[in-house]
């Protein structure tokens, strides 16, 4: 086992830059310690280890952030906005308040992305440093607003808590007067997420479609799907690029209702218990698949399922990308992704 571990490490080191390798390996090993074999999770140590950052209303690289707690649900959302260009430095204190009294724009369309962070439903928060940094980049990229949702995590809060929280966040975003934009004002909402966040985005979009709530598009970054079957990619890539199948299984057991298996529709979208999306007013989707992610066959099956349901979907397949490639701007996949996201929300 030790020998193959070194081989795996060397394989991974060849394809990812050093910084990324350090970052993802660190998470991998810390997470190994946090997951207990009996299915419980060492939340105390997880919170201790998670590097968090506070919101910052002083613009940094043109983006500022603030947190809002919705009293009705106790849900925290972190809002990221672009600073108005002329007041970037030497900001008048209190000037920002005016921005919340007005819509984002009365002439232009300003995209609002509701972002669900990853972490296999278990790890990280909206104020985790890696996600705060990512959301800032996203905000600057789309020149719009990003709302990062601090949804409840498993195993303390299993299915469907995360989906409920996502749905509440969507409703909340739609009802903010200060997120309106365009000549016919409405909130131009996209849903996005990486890993489990992508899974949440899908389910929130389904509920939105069923309820007649508009979502303009879904951006799923190596979303977390699965099933009882073992796909070829799972077998081939098991343990090779930071992730083992047994880890994935642990997170599904922690998220799904007790006693359920991975063919549960939360996990296996187009599986034996999946719903039929044909004829549903589902948003267009951008699905990003990392070619070295062992979950890819499930993600590709998801894309096929959307296509068969005659939904609009674009697949961005990044052959040499591993999970987490988007955390650091030190590889070509990152820039490809950013370009794709930008055109997705502006088309």
């Amino acid at each position, binding site marked *: *086992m*030790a020998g193959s571990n070194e081989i795996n*490490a060397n394989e991974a*080191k060849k394809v990812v830059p*050093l*910084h990324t390798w*350090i*970052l993802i390996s*660190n998470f991998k090993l810390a997470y190994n*310690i946090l997951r207990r*074999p009996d299915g419980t999770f*060492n939340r*105390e*140590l997880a*919170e*201790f280890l998670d*590097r*968090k950052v*506070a*919101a*910052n*209303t*002083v613009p*940094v690289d*043109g*983006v500022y*952030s*603030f*947190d*809002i*707690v*919705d009293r*009705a649900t106790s849900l*925290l959302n*972190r809002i990221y906005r672009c600073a108005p260009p002329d007041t970037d430095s030497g*900001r*008048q*204190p*209190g*000037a*920002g*308040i005016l*921005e*919340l*009294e007005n819509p984002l724009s009365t002439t232009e369309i300003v995209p609002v992305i509701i972002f669900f962070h990853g972490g296999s439903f278990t790890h990280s928060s909206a*104020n*985790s*440093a*890696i996600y705060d*940094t990512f959301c800032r980049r996203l905000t600057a990229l789309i020149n719009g607003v990003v709302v990062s949702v*601090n949804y409840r995590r498993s195993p303390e809060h299993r299915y469907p808590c995360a989906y409920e929280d996502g749905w509440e966040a969507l409703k909340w975003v*739609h*009802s*903010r*007067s200060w997120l*309106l934009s365009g000549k016919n004002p409405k909130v131009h909402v996209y849903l996005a997420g990486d890993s489990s966040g992508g899974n949440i985005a899908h389910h929130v979009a389904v509920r939105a479609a069923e*309820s007649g*709530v508009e979502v303009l598009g879904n951006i799923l970054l190596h979303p977390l799907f699965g099933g009882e079957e073992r796909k070829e990619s799972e077998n081939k890539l098991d343990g090779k690029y930071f992730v083992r199948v047994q880890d994935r299984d642990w997170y599904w057991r922690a998220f799904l209702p007790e006693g359920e298996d991975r063919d549960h529709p939360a996990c296996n979208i187009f599986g034996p218990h999946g719903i039929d999306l044909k004829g549903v007013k589902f948003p267009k989707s951008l699905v990003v698949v990392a070619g070295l992610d062992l979950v890819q066959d499930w993600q590709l099956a998801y894309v096929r399922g959307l296509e068969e349901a005659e939904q609009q979907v674009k697949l961005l397949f990044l052959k040499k990308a591993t999970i987490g490639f988007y955390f*650091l*701007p030190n590889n070509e996949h990152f820039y490809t992704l950013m370009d794709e996201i930008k055109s997705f929300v502006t088309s």
Partner: protein
Amino acid sequence: MGPYDSSISPAAGSSNSSSSACSSSTKPPPPDQMDHLLAGAGYKVRSNELNQVAERLQHLETVMVKSLPVDISEMVNDAVYYNPTDLASWVDSLLTELNTNVTVPEPVPVNTDLSDLHEFPSGMNVYGSNHAPEMHGEFSQQAVTPLEEDVSIRLVHVLMTCAEAVQRGDLSLASLLIDDLQALLGRVNSGCGIGKVGSFFVDALSQRVVNSPENGVVQVELTAYENEILYHHYYEACPYLKFAHFTANQAILEAFDGQDCVHVIDFNLMQGLQWPALIQALALRPGGPPLLRLTGIGPPSNDGRDSLREIGLKLAELARSVNVRFAFRGVAASRLDDVKPWMLQVSPKEAVAVNSIMQLHKLLGPGPPIDLVLDWIRDLNPRILMVVEQESNHNQPEFLDRFTESLYYYSTMFDSLDACTAQPEKSLAELYIQREICNVVCCEGSARVERHEPLVRWRERLTSAGFAPLHLGSNAFKQARMLLTLFSAEGYSVEENEGCLTLGWHSRPLIAASAWQAIPKPSPATMGR
């Protein structure tokens, strides 16, 4: 409570230098600088250590793969971890835990060089108001603006404008705006949220405008008894003081490990609420309790009672009941800089702990009192200096900046109070906080004592004053979280911040606790001082 924005003027010379949106610099950074890519992820690794860290990570994995998962779980239960931001030392501590024979190629540098610390000015929490029931069934695609949110935003807007007018000296405008504010307050629920805290700020502003906008007001002094009542209610209504005491005691206990004669110097004895727990913990110490001396500093009594002595007697009684040899000494001083080290009668044989819970900021007023006090603290050679402070910048030179930041800080604090429904009697706790607000907003010069500064500033100060950090670890973190479960409100959060612990409401830290030890001064002979 409506959303509102806090604009804190960037502190001089600091812009957050975490990874920018699209940085593709081709120039290699100086080798021993902190890597900026990993800094954006919250980790501090020197650029010239990257390969080393990678190797250690790989080694760690090999070791973990060999270990049984159940062994790893057990190891984790017993181990204590420190400062996860320092990735290299984190990996090393794991390796050590797993009992490997890893030879460290070179000594792991103890990172007391804080010059690379990036300043993160504190942000704010903003709260959505309670929604009125939606108008069109469960959900409407029309943007429904809850009325209260509108008024809340307006209220904050006018508060800011008024504060700005005060700063400019435009008192007639300020007065008009205060009338506006009173009217707005009438339209919100003044029992909670922005209504409650807003009214305190409106009060404070109008006091300032009416009385003396330039020189500030002088707050009415309360009797010692009145102060004690307010303090006690604040202590009960929310966990901030308890967290401070609890965390401090943990750290002090550890610092006193193996010491037979210990001396705690408390910069603000108050009712001595912190000490029974420490006395009891020392009583139960394996190997038996030390001789404990406690020196309590407090203001001279203005009502004829000698409250210092009274508290001392009570604590002595408790110590006697648990067989801890105990001696108490009270030092009456109206300001900390009135205290002279000889009054503390520190003996060279004792281990000293200096305990400052929300006191040091009072020394940041005009003059050099803070430097003088830190200097004599250092001369005492304490094994630990425990510092707990409000995590906010209420000491900025511009009035409007202070006003803005304190508005958000205290709104957050009030929100947390609101959520503690188990405590019905909150008005006196609120009054305690209100006096702080008043001091920040209305007072100037030496009367303004609530000069809170955030952790990043205290780190700079204490490091320049010759102190090195003692990291608070995962055990203190875990126990602080357990303490919080005793409070009914969910929303309190403990966070680890490079060896310090903060307690906050949701994602906004409000109180920061840090521990320090004095770096011995170089001897006069060698330094020619």
